[in-house]
């Protein structure tokens, strides 16, 4: 009750307080004294109006007497009076007035206050007031005022705006007048407003919208979009040189806006409205302009006039276009280029999912045949309905389960089957059989004018300009939620049918897929694997995506043998292509790893792809257009190498996916097998070099330097266990730079760069510090180790790549490091000593071993695991090039398979058991300088040794007396590594 004091608190309150009733009273006086707007008082009025809004909002939340005062003095009437004045500076005041009202409506929370403000048509008279819209500011505030009001709409407040009796809805009708305003902010506000209106569940209001405004409004929008894409098309046609990328991207963004807006309306699920909108969209835009443009085929020129007639007939059909303007005709007379049409249709299918719309559209594209087409497009929809009906019947027949009905369907509906080519593969357990001659399909596709155009677009012989859009359209159609499977099945997805054998009750599943399209995809894939081809990476990736959709059903690949062969050929070719770029140059390794990381960042998002206007222009090679690498052709040797790497990864990934396998060979570095920071390592008998690390900021740390196969590790002694160390810094040897200090022979400057990773783009070095050693001998030793470690780490990875690529000269024998770990050397000698090796490593081992303390986690995979695993690839090339393919496939086969194979071989007596001190032959061949001094290695022994007898997969640790020789102890518990040692052995054997 105390707040009511303020009614009389003028004397002892705070008159200077802007947020007070007193101030409002003062402002009221100002308004009542300045009822006529003039040049002199307009600034005062503007300031007063602004303050009034502020006080009211404050009062709304803090002091109800403020609003009471506003009510009692009927201050809203002052507003209206000011607005209606046409005298000097009124537009200046109007802007403030609209802004004030806007703020007021946006912020008033008290519903009684809000209702009062909306009452008695004050707001409606403001809405219909003829403001000076040529004034940009007035326009902006007016439209945002309307938008604010629309946000307040609900089932209650709608009655303030929509008057059932007078059938009047100024808020809506005034707003849609600006739907095509040149200012995009205005257009967006209008769209928001209309959506807010449609959202209100008020039957009579929606009836008003449908009966009085929907047809003209939607036909206007549709016409506007049509005009818009004509512009877009012109822009594409006239810009082969990528001169107006900005304009094009604006136009594309605009089209996306249109589609999203239409989708927003359709998603509100207002049946009547959707019906009108779908009708307008289909018959005035999508069919006559988008789809019709697909028929613009050179070979069917003669049909075009006919088609044009039937299409324009549709666009002017009275029942659908009572309100269509004659301008509409102009739009449909023009066509857009096939490329643009495919692009726009892709967007349509990626964004809209209103089933009646996309279903019809998909049906027309996929199933329309020439006869229907020639009958006129207005028949398309009827035919579609008829087809639906028929399909429903036939599916019922099918449900009855009799073979005869199936056959009946096949014969009676042969027309349907002819509509699209098909090849059937009957998968009965293991057996696959081709049922339909693909040639038949080739012929029948000619009957599908639209599908034929799409298929033709997929041709990449000259370039992949149109192919990308053809692919994206097919992909978008097959992934659209609104398109039912009965339409996409067989064309875009494998068809699954149950054939019941009459004699037995068991049912066989029969999968069929679109062979013609699959062959098109294979063609693109094969093309991509050729040197100097004109297929962009993005096209390949999309083709692969679609390929998977076309051929994978129920988690199985339903691919025929011959198609599998083609894939295999593609794989071999992609390897061959990349082999051309395989060099021992350092950059190749970095590129290889970088591309892999880049690819891991995420697979292609088709929706994002179709937002990029850059793809609308003819494919280009120059990076100076700013176009993303994957969306253009490679420029120069380096980019060609990058491309070859990517193609290799993509095709490899496809093969793995088709085989249902997981990647086990990549990335080159298995992060799980690396030493992590703060890991405890057993460093007994390891080569430790004491040093002081001096950072740039002057901080010094005493550390021990350990050099592993792939990593440089800085450890500090573990306080808990003697001889153990805790890793404090880990870096990859391949990323280090070492430089001596010309002033101090005990010093090294070491920089460790960050490894390339998909996650971070941080290129600040991991470490950049001076290492001070005890004396210059240690310093030199460290330098030598680091330099050689770097070389060898890189060599090792390069060899890994060579094995992946099945490069004959390089691939056979493992690198020294791997050889060191190899089982065959040590297996026999180790077995006796194993028993004593209760601990994690072998006492007799050569120096430089380190093992992390991970006794409790038997599943840990040493980094060597994966590298050894990779030997499997290397194994076969050494045997001969003709085995490559087979090997590649085996490569992808399941692990158990190979491990069992390996196990049996293990027992083979003819397997040589090289003495561990022997230097593998290939080392001498390849890197003679590096053989003698083998870098010390750290072995991670994941769990206490299991006696060999129990598990032949576990490779026993081995020891060797020779101090110079390094023997890698390897126990892998992880199944992935099970066959490693044996494979090595085999490699040796092959040598």
């Amino acid at each position, binding site marked *: *009750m105390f707040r*009511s*004091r303020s*009614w*009389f608190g003028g004397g002892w309150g705070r008159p200077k307080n802007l947020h007070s009733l007193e101030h409002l*009273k003062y402002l*009221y*006086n100002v308004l009542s004294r300045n009822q006529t707007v003039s040049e002199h008082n307009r600034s005062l009025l503007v300031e007063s109006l602004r303050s009034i809004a502020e006080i009211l909002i404050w009062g709304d939340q803090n002091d*109800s007497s403020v609003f*009471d005062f506003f*009510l*009692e003095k*009927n201050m809203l009437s002052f507003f209206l009076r000011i607005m209606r004045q046409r005298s000097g500076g009124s537009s200046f005041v109007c802007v403030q007035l609209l802004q004030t009202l806007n703020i007021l409506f946006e912020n008033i929370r008290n*519903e*009684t206050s809000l*209702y*009062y403000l*909306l*009452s*008695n*048509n004050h707001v409606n008279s403001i809405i219909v007031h003829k403001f000076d819209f040529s004034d940009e500011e007035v326009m902006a505030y007016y439209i945002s005022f309307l938008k604010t009001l629309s946000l307040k709409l609900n*089932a*209650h*407040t709608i*009655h*303030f705006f929509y008057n*059932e009796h007078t059938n009047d809805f100024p808020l809506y009708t005034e707003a849609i007048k600006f739907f095509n305003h040149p200012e995009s902010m205005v257009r967006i506000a209008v769209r928001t407003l209309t959506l807010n209106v449609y959202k209100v569940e008020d039957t009579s209001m929606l009836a008003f919208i449908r009966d009085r405004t929907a047809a003209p409004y939607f036909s206007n929008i549709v016409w506007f979009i049509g005009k818009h894409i004509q512009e877009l098309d012109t822009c594409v046609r006239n810009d082969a040189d990528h001169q107006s990328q900005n304009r094009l991207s604006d136009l594309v963004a605009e089209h996306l806006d249109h589609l999203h807006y239409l989708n927003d309306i359709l998603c509100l699920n207002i049946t009547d409205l959707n019906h009108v909108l779908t009708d307008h969209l289909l018959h005035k835009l999508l069919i006559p302009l988008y789809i019709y443009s697909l028929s613009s085929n050179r070979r069917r020129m003669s049909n075009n006039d006919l088609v044009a007639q039937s299409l324009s007939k549709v666009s002017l059909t009275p029942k659908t276009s009572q309100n269509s303007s004659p301008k509409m005709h102009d739009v449909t007379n023009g066509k857009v280029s096939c490329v643009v049409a495919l692009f726009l249709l892709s967007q349509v299918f990626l964004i809209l999912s209103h089933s009646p719309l996309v279903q019809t559209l998909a049906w027309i594209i996929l199933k329309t045949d020439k006869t229907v087409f020639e009958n006129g497009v207005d028949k398309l929809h009827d035919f579609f309905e008829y087809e639906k009906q028929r399909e429903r019947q036939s599916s019922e027949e099918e449900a009855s389960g009799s073979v005869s009905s199936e056959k009946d369907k096949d014969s009676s509906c042969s027309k349907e089957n002819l509509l699209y080519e098909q090849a059937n593969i009957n998968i009965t357990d293991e057996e696959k059989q081709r049922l339909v001659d693909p040639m038949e399909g080739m012929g029948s596709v000619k009957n599908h004018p639209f599908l034929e155009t799409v298929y033709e677009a997929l041709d990449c012989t000259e370039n992949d300009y149109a192919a990308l859009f053809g692919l994206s359209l097919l992909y978008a159609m097959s992934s659209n939620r609104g398109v039912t499977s009965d339409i996409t099945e067989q064309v875009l997805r494998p068809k699954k049918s149950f054939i019941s054998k009459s004699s037995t009750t068991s049912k066989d599943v029969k999968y069929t897929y679109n062979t013609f399209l699959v062959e098109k995809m294979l063609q693109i894939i094969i093309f991509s694997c050729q040197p100097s081809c004109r297929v962009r990476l993005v096209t390949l990736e999309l083709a692969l995506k679609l390929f998977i959709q076309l051929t994978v059903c129920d988690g199985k690949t339903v691919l025929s043998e011959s198609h599998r062969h083609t894939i295999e050929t593609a794989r071999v070719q992609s390897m061959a292509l990349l082999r051309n770029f395989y060099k021992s140059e350092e950059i190749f390794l970095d590129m290889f790893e970088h591309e892999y990381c880049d690819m891991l960042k995420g697979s292609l998002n088709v929706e994002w792809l179709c937002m990029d206007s850059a793809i609308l222009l003819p494919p280009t090679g120059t990076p100076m257009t700013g176009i993303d690498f994957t969306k253009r052709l490679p420029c120069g040797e380096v980019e060609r190498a990058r491309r070859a790497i990517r193609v290799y990864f993509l095709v490899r990934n496809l093969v793995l996916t088709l085989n249902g396998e997981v990647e086990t060979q990549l990335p080159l570095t298995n992060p799980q097998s690396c030493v992590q920071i703060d890991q405890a390592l057993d460093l007994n008998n390891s080569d430790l070099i004491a040093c002081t690390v001096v950072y740039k900021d002057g901080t010094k740390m005493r550390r021990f330097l350990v050099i592993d196969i792939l990593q440089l590790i800085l450890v500090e002694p573990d306080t808990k266990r003697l001889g153990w160390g805790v890793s404090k810094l880990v870096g990859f040897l391949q990323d280090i730079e070492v430089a001596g200090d010309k002033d101090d022979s005990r010093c090294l400057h070491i920089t460790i760069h960050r490894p390339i990773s998909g996650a971070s783009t941080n290129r600040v070095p991991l470490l950049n510090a001076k290492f001070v050693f005890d004396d210059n001998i240690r310093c030199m030793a460290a330098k030598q180790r680091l330099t050689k470690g770097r070389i060898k780490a890189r060599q090792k990875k390069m060899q890994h790549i060579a094995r992946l690529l099945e490069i004959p000269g390089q691939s056979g024998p493992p690198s020294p490091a791997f050889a060191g770990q190899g089982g065959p050397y040590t297996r026999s000698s180790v077995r006796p000593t194993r028993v004593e090796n209760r601990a994690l490593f072998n006492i007799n081992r050569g120096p430089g071993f380190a093992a992390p303390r991970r006794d409790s986690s038997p599943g840990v995979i040493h980094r060597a695991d994966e590298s050894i695993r990779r030997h499997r690839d290397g194994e076969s090339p050494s045997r001969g090039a003709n085995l490559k393919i087979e090997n590649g496939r085996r490569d992808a086969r399941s692990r158990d398979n190979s491990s069992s194979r390996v196990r049996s071989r293990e027992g083979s007596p003819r397997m040589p058991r090289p003495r561990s001190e022997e230097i593998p032959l290939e080392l001498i061949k390849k890197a003679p300088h590096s053989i003698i001094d083998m870098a010390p290695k750290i072995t991670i022994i994941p769990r206490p040794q299991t006696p060999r007898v129990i598990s032949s997969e576990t490779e026993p640790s081995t020891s060797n007396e020779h101090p110079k020789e390094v023997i890698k102890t390897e126990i892998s518990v992880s199944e992935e590594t099970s066959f490693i040692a044996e494979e090595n052995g085999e490699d040796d054997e092959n040598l």
Partner: protein
Amino acid sequence: MVEPIFDYQFRLILIGDSTVGKSSLLKYFTDGKFAEVSDPTVGVDFFARLIEVKDGTRIKLQLWDTAGQERFRSITKSYYRNSVGALLVYDICNRTSFDNIPLWMSEAKRHIEPHRPVFCLVGCKLDLVNNGGKREVSKEEAKAFADQHSLFHVETSAKNGLNVEEAFRCVTQEVFNRIQSGEYKVEDGWDGIKTGFSRPSGLNFNLVEAEPAKLSCC
């Protein structure tokens, strides 16, 4: 500018079917004029007037005029809560408007709860009857209904102002009486009754009275 001085502020609401004459009644009461043509109220309208009760206490009436149309029913409901009294308005020449009075009354009661509003049953357009129009609701019947529900009853004409003042005055007096008797109290968060600060020494006893009652429950 000097604000009118008053001791109390009551908020009243006018309800009843559409076109019974609520707005005209209110316009005559606040303006002393009768408008021959009147648009239907859209949503709500607001008026204020100062009157004196018998002992000279000055009362400011805040008056909410509501739309009788069904489509605004959900809107007008939100104005009941802060009212202390309601004028149930019907058209003497429109039977249906009288038949709907019980509905209006129960709706008002329901929304004003826990407060018990003062009602006045107001028949409008008495001038039409006097000019030979057809009366559809007899005075006796309305009186009987009012007595049965303990309402005031008055028949008015907004055209010549007959009994208009009466209608508002009786409600105001009754609300004031109930304050005097202690039935109504000024409450924070309820705008049905508020106090004004009329005289420098005019600290109201009700205000004092209300406080201990509140404190005691804490």
